[in-house]
Protein backbone atom coordinates (compact mmCIF):
# COMPACT_ATOMS: atom_id res chain seq x y z
CA UNK A 1 0.00 0.00 0.00
CA UNK A 2 2.80 2.36 0.90
CA UNK A 3 4.54 1.43 -2.31
CA UNK A 4 1.40 2.22 -4.29
CA UNK A 5 1.13 5.61 -2.58
CA UNK A 6 4.67 6.51 -3.48
CA UNK A 7 4.35 5.22 -7.00
CA UNK A 8 1.07 6.84 -7.98
CA UNK A 9 2.50 10.31 -8.75
CA UNK A 10 5.32 8.63 -10.61
CA UNK A 11 2.88 6.54 -12.61
CA UNK A 12 0.95 9.68 -13.45
CA UNK A 13 4.14 11.34 -14.60
CA UNK A 14 5.09 8.35 -16.73
CA UNK A 15 1.61 8.16 -18.18
CA UNK A 16 1.81 11.85 -18.95
CA UNK A 17 5.21 11.45 -20.61
CA UNK A 18 4.09 8.46 -22.62
CA UNK A 19 0.88 10.10 -23.77
CA UNK A 20 2.78 13.19 -24.82
CA UNK A 21 5.36 11.20 -26.69
CA UNK A 22 2.48 9.52 -28.47
CA UNK A 23 0.12 12.46 -29.03
CA UNK A 24 2.43 15.46 -29.29
CA UNK A 25 5.52 13.88 -30.78
CA UNK A 26 3.44 11.41 -32.72
CA UNK A 27 5.33 8.24 -31.97
CA UNK A 28 3.62 4.85 -31.91
CA UNK A 29 3.20 3.58 -28.35
CA UNK A 30 6.03 1.08 -28.59
CA UNK A 31 8.50 3.71 -29.72
CA UNK A 32 7.22 6.08 -27.05
CA UNK A 33 8.43 3.57 -24.48
CA UNK A 34 11.81 3.33 -26.17
CA UNK A 35 12.01 7.12 -26.36
CA UNK A 36 11.15 7.41 -22.67
CA UNK A 37 14.06 5.14 -21.76
CA UNK A 38 16.42 7.08 -23.98
CA UNK A 39 15.32 10.39 -22.46
CA UNK A 40 15.72 9.15 -18.88
CA UNK A 41 19.13 7.68 -19.61
CA UNK A 42 20.28 10.74 -21.50
CA UNK A 43 19.41 12.93 -18.54
CA UNK A 44 21.54 10.66 -16.39
CA UNK A 45 24.58 10.62 -18.70
CA UNK A 46 26.52 13.54 -17.16
CA UNK A 47 26.01 12.07 -13.73
CA UNK A 48 26.94 8.57 -14.80
CA UNK A 49 30.09 9.68 -16.56
CA UNK A 50 31.23 11.67 -13.54
CA UNK A 51 30.52 8.79 -11.26
CA UNK A 52 32.30 6.22 -13.39
CA UNK A 53 35.31 8.48 -13.64
CA UNK A 54 35.45 9.00 -9.91
CA UNK A 55 34.93 5.30 -9.33
CA UNK A 56 37.78 4.32 -11.61
CA UNK A 57 40.10 6.57 -9.67
CA UNK A 58 38.82 5.05 -6.48
CA UNK A 59 39.45 1.52 -7.71
CA UNK A 60 42.91 2.36 -8.93
CA UNK A 61 43.84 3.76 -5.53
CA UNK A 62 41.99 1.19 -3.43
CA UNK A 63 45.08 -0.46 -1.88
CA UNK A 64 46.61 2.86 -0.88
CA UNK A 65 43.40 3.98 0.72
CA UNK A 66 43.06 0.71 2.54
CA UNK A 67 46.58 1.28 3.88
CA UNK A 68 45.61 4.77 5.05
CA UNK A 69 42.54 3.40 6.77
CA UNK A 70 44.52 0.76 8.65
CA UNK A 71 47.22 3.26 9.55
CA UNK A 72 44.79 5.65 11.24
CA UNK A 73 42.43 2.99 12.49
CA UNK A 74 42.34 4.37 15.99
CA UNK A 75 42.07 8.03 15.09
CA UNK A 76 38.95 8.49 13.03
CA UNK A 77 39.30 12.23 12.70
CA UNK A 78 42.85 11.97 11.45
CA UNK A 79 41.79 9.16 9.12
CA UNK A 80 39.04 11.28 7.60
CA UNK A 81 41.42 14.19 7.16
CA UNK A 82 43.99 12.02 5.47
CA UNK A 83 41.34 10.42 3.28
CA UNK A 84 39.90 13.77 2.22
CA UNK A 85 43.37 14.98 1.31
CA UNK A 86 43.92 11.81 -0.63
CA UNK A 87 40.63 12.25 -2.49
CA UNK A 88 41.55 15.76 -3.44
CA UNK A 89 44.98 14.78 -4.62
CA UNK A 90 43.66 11.96 -6.78
CA UNK A 91 40.55 13.68 -8.08
CA UNK A 92 38.19 11.31 -6.41
CA UNK A 93 34.80 12.78 -5.73
CA UNK A 94 33.14 10.57 -3.17
CA UNK A 95 30.52 13.12 -2.22
CA UNK A 96 28.58 12.14 -5.30
CA UNK A 97 26.00 9.52 -4.63
CA UNK A 98 24.51 6.73 -6.63
CA UNK A 99 21.06 7.79 -5.48
CA UNK A 100 19.99 9.61 -8.66
CA UNK A 101 20.87 6.51 -10.60
CA UNK A 102 19.09 4.36 -8.07
CA UNK A 103 16.06 6.60 -8.64
CA UNK A 104 15.60 4.77 -11.93
CA UNK A 105 14.37 1.76 -10.01
CA UNK A 106 11.03 3.30 -8.99
CA UNK A 107 10.73 4.52 -12.57
CA UNK A 108 11.17 0.96 -13.74
CA UNK A 109 8.57 -0.36 -11.29
CA UNK A 110 6.25 2.53 -12.09
CA UNK A 111 6.43 1.79 -15.79
CA UNK A 112 5.72 -1.86 -15.03
CA UNK A 113 2.43 -0.86 -13.39
CA UNK A 114 1.60 1.62 -16.12
CA UNK A 115 2.15 -0.94 -18.84
CA UNK A 116 0.30 -3.62 -16.94
CA UNK A 117 -2.66 -1.32 -16.47
CA UNK A 118 -2.30 0.25 -19.90
CA UNK A 119 -5.86 -0.46 -20.97
CA UNK A 120 -7.32 0.84 -17.74
CA UNK A 121 -5.15 3.90 -17.33
CA UNK A 122 -4.57 5.23 -20.80
CA UNK A 123 -7.37 3.93 -23.02
CA UNK A 124 -10.36 5.55 -21.28
CA UNK A 125 -9.07 9.03 -22.10
CA UNK A 126 -9.18 8.23 -25.80
CA UNK A 127 -12.40 6.34 -25.62
CA UNK A 128 -14.11 9.26 -23.92
CA UNK A 129 -12.89 11.58 -26.64
CA UNK A 130 -14.05 9.08 -29.21
CA UNK A 131 -10.56 8.78 -30.65
CA UNK A 132 -8.69 5.67 -31.56
CA UNK A 133 -6.05 4.57 -29.12
CA UNK A 134 -3.47 4.29 -31.84
CA UNK A 135 -0.89 1.80 -32.88
CA UNK A 136 -0.06 -0.70 -30.18
CA UNK A 137 2.20 -2.83 -32.32
CA UNK A 138 5.96 -2.88 -32.32
CA UNK A 139 7.38 -3.48 -35.78
CA UNK A 140 4.11 -5.31 -36.51
CA UNK A 141 5.42 -8.15 -34.39
CA UNK A 142 4.09 -7.76 -30.90
CA UNK A 143 1.32 -5.89 -29.18
CA UNK A 144 2.81 -4.01 -26.24
CA UNK A 145 0.01 -4.89 -23.84
CA UNK A 146 0.08 -8.61 -24.58
CA UNK A 147 2.32 -10.76 -22.51
CA UNK A 148 5.39 -12.11 -24.17
CA UNK A 149 4.01 -15.58 -24.74
CA UNK A 150 1.70 -14.30 -27.45
CA UNK A 151 2.60 -14.14 -31.16
CA UNK A 152 6.13 -13.01 -31.80
CA UNK A 153 6.58 -12.25 -28.10
CA UNK A 154 9.09 -15.08 -27.61
CA UNK A 155 11.32 -13.38 -30.17
CA UNK A 156 11.35 -10.36 -27.90
CA UNK A 157 12.22 -12.62 -24.99
CA UNK A 158 15.11 -14.09 -26.96
CA UNK A 159 16.33 -10.59 -27.76
CA UNK A 160 16.03 -9.69 -24.10
CA UNK A 161 17.98 -12.79 -23.07
CA UNK A 162 20.74 -11.96 -25.56
CA UNK A 163 20.94 -8.37 -24.36
CA UNK A 164 21.01 -9.54 -20.76
CA UNK A 165 23.75 -12.05 -21.52
CA UNK A 166 25.78 -9.46 -23.37
CA UNK A 167 25.59 -6.97 -20.57
CA UNK A 168 26.35 -9.73 -18.03
CA UNK A 169 29.34 -10.75 -20.08
CA UNK A 170 30.69 -7.21 -20.16
CA UNK A 171 29.82 -6.50 -16.57
CA UNK A 172 31.56 -9.58 -15.25
CA UNK A 173 34.97 -9.17 -16.87
CA UNK A 174 36.47 -8.24 -13.53
CA UNK A 175 34.78 -11.00 -11.57
CA UNK A 176 36.13 -14.34 -10.52
CA UNK A 177 35.28 -17.27 -12.81
CA UNK A 178 32.71 -18.90 -10.52
CA UNK A 179 30.76 -15.70 -10.10
CA UNK A 180 31.08 -14.93 -13.75
CA UNK A 181 29.64 -18.28 -14.77
CA UNK A 182 26.68 -17.65 -12.49
CA UNK A 183 26.14 -14.22 -14.01
CA UNK A 184 25.97 -15.82 -17.43
CA UNK A 185 23.60 -18.62 -16.43
CA UNK A 186 21.12 -16.52 -14.49
CA UNK A 187 19.63 -14.57 -17.42
CA UNK A 188 18.38 -17.87 -18.79
CA UNK A 189 16.96 -18.87 -15.43
CA UNK A 190 15.00 -15.63 -15.43
CA UNK A 191 13.14 -16.34 -18.67
CA UNK A 192 10.16 -18.13 -17.07
CA UNK A 193 9.40 -15.06 -14.95
CA UNK A 194 9.76 -12.74 -17.87
CA UNK A 195 7.21 -14.66 -19.94
CA UNK A 196 4.39 -13.12 -17.93
CA UNK A 197 5.49 -9.57 -18.49
CA UNK A 198 3.79 -7.30 -20.99
CA UNK A 199 5.76 -6.91 -24.21
CA UNK A 200 5.98 -3.17 -23.60
CA UNK A 201 7.92 -3.76 -20.39
CA UNK A 202 10.19 -6.18 -22.21
CA UNK A 203 10.84 -3.46 -24.74
CA UNK A 204 11.73 -1.09 -21.93
CA UNK A 205 14.10 -3.64 -20.45
CA UNK A 206 15.66 -4.41 -23.80
CA UNK A 207 16.29 -0.73 -24.47
CA UNK A 208 17.74 -0.30 -21.00
CA UNK A 209 20.13 -3.21 -21.55
CA UNK A 210 21.20 -1.92 -24.93
CA UNK A 211 21.80 1.53 -23.51
CA UNK A 212 23.73 0.22 -20.51
CA UNK A 213 25.87 -2.02 -22.70
CA UNK A 214 26.60 0.73 -25.19
CA UNK A 215 27.37 3.20 -22.45
CA UNK A 216 29.65 0.70 -20.75
CA UNK A 217 31.55 0.05 -23.94
CA UNK A 218 31.96 3.74 -24.68
CA UNK A 219 33.06 4.71 -21.18
CA UNK A 220 35.49 1.81 -21.18
CA UNK A 221 37.01 3.02 -24.43
CA UNK A 222 37.20 6.63 -23.33
CA UNK A 223 38.87 5.89 -20.03
CA UNK A 224 41.79 3.56 -20.70
CA UNK A 225 43.14 1.70 -17.72
CA UNK A 226 45.87 3.78 -16.23
CA UNK A 227 48.79 1.69 -15.14
CA UNK A 228 50.43 3.58 -12.29
CA UNK A 229 54.00 3.83 -13.57
CA UNK A 230 55.47 6.18 -10.94
CA UNK A 231 54.85 3.66 -8.22
CA UNK A 232 56.86 0.97 -9.94
CA UNK A 233 60.12 2.84 -9.46
CA UNK A 234 59.71 3.30 -5.72
CA UNK A 235 60.11 -0.21 -4.47
CA UNK A 236 62.45 0.27 -1.59
CA UNK A 237 60.37 -0.42 1.52
CA UNK A 238 58.63 -3.77 1.61
CA UNK A 239 55.36 -2.08 2.56
CA UNK A 240 55.27 -0.28 -0.75
CA UNK A 241 55.92 -3.45 -2.58
CA UNK A 242 52.92 -5.11 -1.03
CA UNK A 243 50.77 -2.15 -1.93
CA UNK A 244 52.14 -2.17 -5.43
CA UNK A 245 51.50 -5.83 -5.98
CA UNK A 246 47.94 -5.40 -4.90
CA UNK A 247 47.71 -2.33 -7.05
CA UNK A 248 48.24 -3.91 -10.45
CA UNK A 249 44.79 -5.21 -11.17
CA UNK A 250 42.67 -2.90 -9.10
CA UNK A 251 40.02 -5.57 -8.82
CA UNK A 252 42.32 -8.41 -7.98
CA UNK A 253 42.54 -7.70 -4.31
CA UNK A 254 38.95 -8.24 -3.30
CA UNK A 255 38.43 -10.79 -6.04
CA UNK A 256 40.53 -13.70 -4.84
CA UNK A 257 39.19 -13.20 -1.36
CA UNK A 258 35.59 -13.46 -2.47
CA UNK A 259 35.09 -16.61 -4.51
CA UNK A 260 37.15 -19.13 -2.62
CA UNK A 261 35.05 -18.24 0.36
CA UNK A 262 31.88 -18.81 -1.58
CA UNK A 263 33.25 -22.13 -2.80
CA UNK A 264 34.16 -23.14 0.71
CA UNK A 265 30.63 -22.41 1.77
CA UNK A 266 29.31 -24.62 -1.01
CA UNK A 267 31.49 -27.49 0.05
CA UNK A 268 30.36 -27.09 3.59
CA UNK A 269 26.78 -27.33 2.49
CA UNK A 270 27.31 -30.38 0.32
CA UNK A 271 29.23 -32.23 2.95
CA UNK A 272 26.68 -31.26 5.52
CA UNK A 273 29.47 -31.17 8.05
CA UNK A 274 28.37 -27.90 9.52
CA UNK A 275 24.79 -26.79 9.85
Amino acid sequence: MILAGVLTPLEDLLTWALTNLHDTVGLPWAWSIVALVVIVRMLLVPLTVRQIHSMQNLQAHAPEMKALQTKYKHDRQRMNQELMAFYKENQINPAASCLPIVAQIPVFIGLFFVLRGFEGEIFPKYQRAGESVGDLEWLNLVNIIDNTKVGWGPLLVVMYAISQLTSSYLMSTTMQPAQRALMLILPIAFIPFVLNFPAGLMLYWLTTNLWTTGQGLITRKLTPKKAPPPKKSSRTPPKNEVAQRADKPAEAKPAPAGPPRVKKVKRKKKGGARR
Partner: protein
Amino acid sequence: MRFVGIALVHAWRQTFGRLTPEGTCKYHPSCSQYALDAFAKHGLVKGSAKAGWRLLRCNPWSHGGVDYA
Protein backbone atom coordinates in the same frame (compact mmCIF):
# COMPACT_ATOMS: atom_id res chain seq x y z
CA MET B 1 21.16 -20.28 5.03
CA ARG B 2 23.50 -17.75 3.58
CA PHE B 3 22.51 -18.94 0.12
CA VAL B 4 19.25 -17.07 0.56
CA GLY B 5 21.20 -13.86 0.81
CA ILE B 6 23.51 -14.71 -2.05
CA ALA B 7 20.55 -15.65 -4.26
CA LEU B 8 18.85 -12.35 -3.45
CA VAL B 9 21.94 -10.41 -4.43
CA HIS B 10 22.08 -12.25 -7.73
CA ALA B 11 18.39 -11.62 -8.32
CA TRP B 12 19.09 -7.95 -7.72
CA ARG B 13 21.96 -8.02 -10.19
CA GLN B 14 19.78 -9.60 -12.86
CA THR B 15 16.98 -7.08 -12.44
CA PHE B 16 17.32 -3.64 -10.97
CA GLY B 17 21.07 -3.89 -10.68
CA ARG B 18 21.08 -3.48 -14.45
CA LEU B 19 19.81 0.03 -14.04
CA THR B 20 22.80 1.06 -11.98
CA PRO B 21 25.72 0.61 -14.32
CA GLU B 22 29.02 -0.79 -13.25
CA GLY B 23 31.24 1.67 -11.50
CA THR B 24 28.65 4.20 -10.46
CA CYS B 25 28.77 3.46 -6.75
CA LYS B 26 30.71 5.73 -4.45
CA TYR B 27 32.11 2.78 -2.58
CA HIS B 28 34.50 0.12 -3.66
CA PRO B 29 33.65 -2.73 -3.92
CA SER B 30 30.08 -2.17 -5.06
CA CYS B 31 27.28 -2.73 -2.59
CA SER B 32 26.26 -6.02 -4.21
CA GLN B 33 29.82 -7.32 -4.13
CA TYR B 34 30.10 -6.15 -0.55
CA ALA B 35 26.92 -8.05 0.28
CA LEU B 36 28.23 -11.21 -1.37
CA ASP B 37 31.46 -10.94 0.58
CA ALA B 38 29.58 -10.20 3.79
CA PHE B 39 27.33 -13.24 3.38
CA ALA B 40 30.29 -15.48 2.65
CA LYS B 41 32.21 -14.14 5.60
CA HIS B 42 29.57 -13.61 8.26
CA GLY B 43 26.57 -15.72 7.28
CA LEU B 44 23.02 -14.61 6.59
CA VAL B 45 22.12 -12.64 9.69
CA LYS B 46 25.26 -10.65 10.28
CA GLY B 47 25.89 -10.43 6.54
CA SER B 48 22.46 -8.87 5.97
CA ALA B 49 23.04 -6.43 8.77
CA LYS B 50 26.42 -5.45 7.35
CA ALA B 51 25.09 -5.15 3.82
CA GLY B 52 22.06 -3.18 5.00
CA TRP B 53 24.26 -0.78 6.90
CA ARG B 54 26.43 -0.38 3.81
CA LEU B 55 23.37 0.50 1.72
CA LEU B 56 22.39 3.12 4.27
CA ARG B 57 25.87 4.54 4.18
CA CYS B 58 25.49 5.19 0.45
CA ASN B 59 24.02 8.65 0.84
CA PRO B 60 25.05 12.18 -0.05
CA TRP B 61 26.45 12.77 3.42
CA SER B 62 28.94 9.94 3.47
CA HIS B 63 32.37 10.01 1.93
CA GLY B 64 32.34 6.70 0.13
CA GLY B 65 35.67 5.12 -0.52
CA VAL B 66 37.23 1.75 -0.09
CA ASP B 67 35.37 -0.50 2.27
CA TYR B 68 35.74 -4.27 2.23
CA ALA B 69 33.31 -6.53 4.02
